[in-house]
């Protein structure tokens, strides 16, 4: 490889066909005379502008038969000509300089064209250079060189993460790896499972229980996840009514009076609330508003008056924490849009209460397609206030534009899977952790199950990783109509 030119923090390198270089890999430009080395990442591989290539390409198709007889080339010079014609231009971005054994971000110097040597910098060595010691390793797959790609779970602590990519490229897969990695180190994880694909994390592919079986708790709202009003508390119910069910201010005030009235008389129950609204002396419109919300709560089947039927969410969280971590999967797959919002409001409000009172230490929250259930004001809450309480969120989405730009800017780690749509690429290019050119160029060509990792977990050196297969029942695979037909055909063809 030879250094060709440098413009700003972009370096162009000429590479030949027998040199193993691909988009996303790192190179080190070692200028021994200057005593410095530059670390660059290949963000694009193009054909080198070899003089005369157009003439070569134009004359080849002039002969009709591609097998046009052997050339008499006793010195095999043609192979050298073809070698030159296949020369590549590597477009690279500078990521730092190694000087006196230390890494600095200086990219202003020019390595010598003639004296510099350029070679590939394996990810393992790069991580050694940045002193990336890993205390709580989570293996997420392998690097481009085939070496293990390991991130430190402790770097996810207190951080905001985003996993995004188009459909079917492996986002949920990576998210499950992170969930299992975190709970294996005793973390408490809450997952808003929109498609019911996390509920079998405790089972292997063959259906057998795995080491996480006892740590995975699946809660299905309306079935095994119901709460009493007393467990919920007025503040949480008010948030549900106001934010999830859009109860106007006047009606909310009346509801608060009703609640306190019943609470003072130790009569707090769904049935009594209904009766109280009926008897309450207030404007008819307020009464109607309260009734409509009351029936919505009733039909959500999430609240119960039967204490035995209810789940002590607070107790469950504390149990999980005490028993060395675990995942609470909130299966929202069968919930309506409103019911989802009620459940999410309940859980987030509860988490805030518990964390603010130091009843639990911290929670890693995984939110799939959060825009479908997260109210507008929560986004900023999550990245600012809730983070200080100890809610560390990972958003997983295939629609990057549903996450606000401010969230991208504040994200500590971003796991980007493939996107081809220009609009999506433009949205993700706003990620502050790396320049837009790097993001767009690499992400556009990522194959399925490969992701570009940006942020603290990779010490701000963007790294392409292949996500490993997971021996758990994913249930995230899309159900297909024709897969049944294919299965039948396969069965028939296998018959003797």
């Amino acid at each position, binding site marked *: 490889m030879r250094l060709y030119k440098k413009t700003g923090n972009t370096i162009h390198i000429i590479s030949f066909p027998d040199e193993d270089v691909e988009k996303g890999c790192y190179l080190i430009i070692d200028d021994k005379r200057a005593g410095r080395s530059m670390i660059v990442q290949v963000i694009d591989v193009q054909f080198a502008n070899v*003089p*005369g290539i157009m*003439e*070569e390409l134009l004359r080849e198709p*002039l002969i009709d038969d591609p097998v046009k007889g052997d*050339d008499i080339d006793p010195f095999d*010079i043609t192979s*050298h000509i*073809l070698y030159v014609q296949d020369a590549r231009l590597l477009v690279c971005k500078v990521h730092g300089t190694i000087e006196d054994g230390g890494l600095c971000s200086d990219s202003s110097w020019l390595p010598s064209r003639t004296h510099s040597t350029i070679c590939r910098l394996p990810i393992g060595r790069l991580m050694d250079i940045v002193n990336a010691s890993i205390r709580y390793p989570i293996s997420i797959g392998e690097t481009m060189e085939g070496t293990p790609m390991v991130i430190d779970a402790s770097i996810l602590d207190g951080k905001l993460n985003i996993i995004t990519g188009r459909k079917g490229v492996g986002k949920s897969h990576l998210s499950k790896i992170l969930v299992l990695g975190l709970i294996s180190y005793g973390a408490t994880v809450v997952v808003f499972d929109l498609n019911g694909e996390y509920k079998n994390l405790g089972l292997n592919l063959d259906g057998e229980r795995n080491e996480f079986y006892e740590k995975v708790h699946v809660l299905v709202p309306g079935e095994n996840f119901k709460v009493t009003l007393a467990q919920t508390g007025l503040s949480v119910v008010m948030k549900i009514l106001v934010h999830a069910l859009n109860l106007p201010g006047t009606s909310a005030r009346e509801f608060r009076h009703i609640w306190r009235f019943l609470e003072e008389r130790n009569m707090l129950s769904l049935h009594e609330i209904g009766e109280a609204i009926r008897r309450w002396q207030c404007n008819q419109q307020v009464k109607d508003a309260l009734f409509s919300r009351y029936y919505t709560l009733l039909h959500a089947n999430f609240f119960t008056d039967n204490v035995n039927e209810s789940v002590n969410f607070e107790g469950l969280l504390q149990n999980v924490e005490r028993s060395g971590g675990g995942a609470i999967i909130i299966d929202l797959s069968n919930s309506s849009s409103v019911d989802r919002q009620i459940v999410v409001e309940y859980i987030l409000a509860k988490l805030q209460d518990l964390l603010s009172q130091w009843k639990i230490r911290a929670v890693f929250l995984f939110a799939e397609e959060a825009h479908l259930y997260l109210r507008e004001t929560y986004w900023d809450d999550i990245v600012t206030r809730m983070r200080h309480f100890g809610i560390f969120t990972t958003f997983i989405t295939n629609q990057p534009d549903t996450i606000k730009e401010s969230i991208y800017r504040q994200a500590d780690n971003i796991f980007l899977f493939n996107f081809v749509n220009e609009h999506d690429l433009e949205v993700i290019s706003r990620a502050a952790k790396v320049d837009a050119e790097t993001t767009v160029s690499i992400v556009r060509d990522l194959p399925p199950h490969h992701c570009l990792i940006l942020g603290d977990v990779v010490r701000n050196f963007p790294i392409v990783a292949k996500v490993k297969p997971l021996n758990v029942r994913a249930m995230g695979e899309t159900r297909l109509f024709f897969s049944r037909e294919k299965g039948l055909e396969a069965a028939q063809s296998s018959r003797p």
Partner: protein
Amino acid sequence: MNEIKERFFQPWIEFNGQSIERSGEQEDTVEVYSRDAFSIISPLEPIPDNTPIVAIDTSSIKVGETESGVICAVRGAVVWNERRQYRCLRIGPFPFHITEDNKREILRVLGQYSPIAYSSNASFLIEVQSRLCNALERWIQMMVSRSASNSIILWDGTLSCRPQNDCVSLLLRILEDARRNSNAVISLSKASTVKFLGRRITDLLMKQREPCLLEIDEHMLSISSKSLRLLGKIYVAKLSEKGYAFRVDVDRGLSRDVHMMALRRLMGNDSVFQGYPEALRLAHIFSTFTASDVIGIQRFISRKYGLKVVTWPSIRKALFGPFGTGGAGD
């Protein structure tokens, strides 16, 4: 080439000079004197009878300089057309290191294929390069004449040479081999030196619409047998309606009728682009060196012979700066 191992080499990077085609024998201007009107054979009807058309061309290029000389490469191409299907055989590239010390030796070795290469007094190394190209072309012509049969063989240039050179006998031998195998050799010149009343003779057919042929008798030409030996009968041919006219030399050993038949068969069995046979056009294209060819050859010689690439200071550039161009004949 082995004597340059581990030595220094400056790659030649100015591709503007393009590759040099075989120079052959450069004719002086030949005037045509005629008191009679020229006889134009028109129209020239094509004969499509699947006669194979074989075209030969070569080229050479300078690829670098060493302390003692120049490195050049030569390549030849044979293109043949069978039932309108073109095939190509490329011969080379062959790199040569030409120095003042070895140029005589090179010419002597090559003399057996191209006496002109040995007998001529090449004073510049660049001339040796064109002699090498010429030798390769004669060798390919000889091989094709011996291996092809019942074909029309197209050469680039003319069928003439100076009698003081030994090339006459070689050319005669090649033409004889071709005739023995029932081949007809036709040579096409892109730039003819034959003139009539100071104008190029090809201009005489400018106003002709249909394909036609203008026959030039030897007694009409201002040449003596001492200055130039013509081994072909000279015609001016316009091979297509919308195309240029070219000077065409056809083997004199063949009869006039065979000449006509050969030209008509050429028209009938090869595509004619701008009045020029496609097979010969392709042979030129495939023998010509492109810039990437030159870089590939430079890579080969630096790898194979361990040449160290250097850039010697250019006196012209030092003296004249951006005006220090040219100087090929220095």
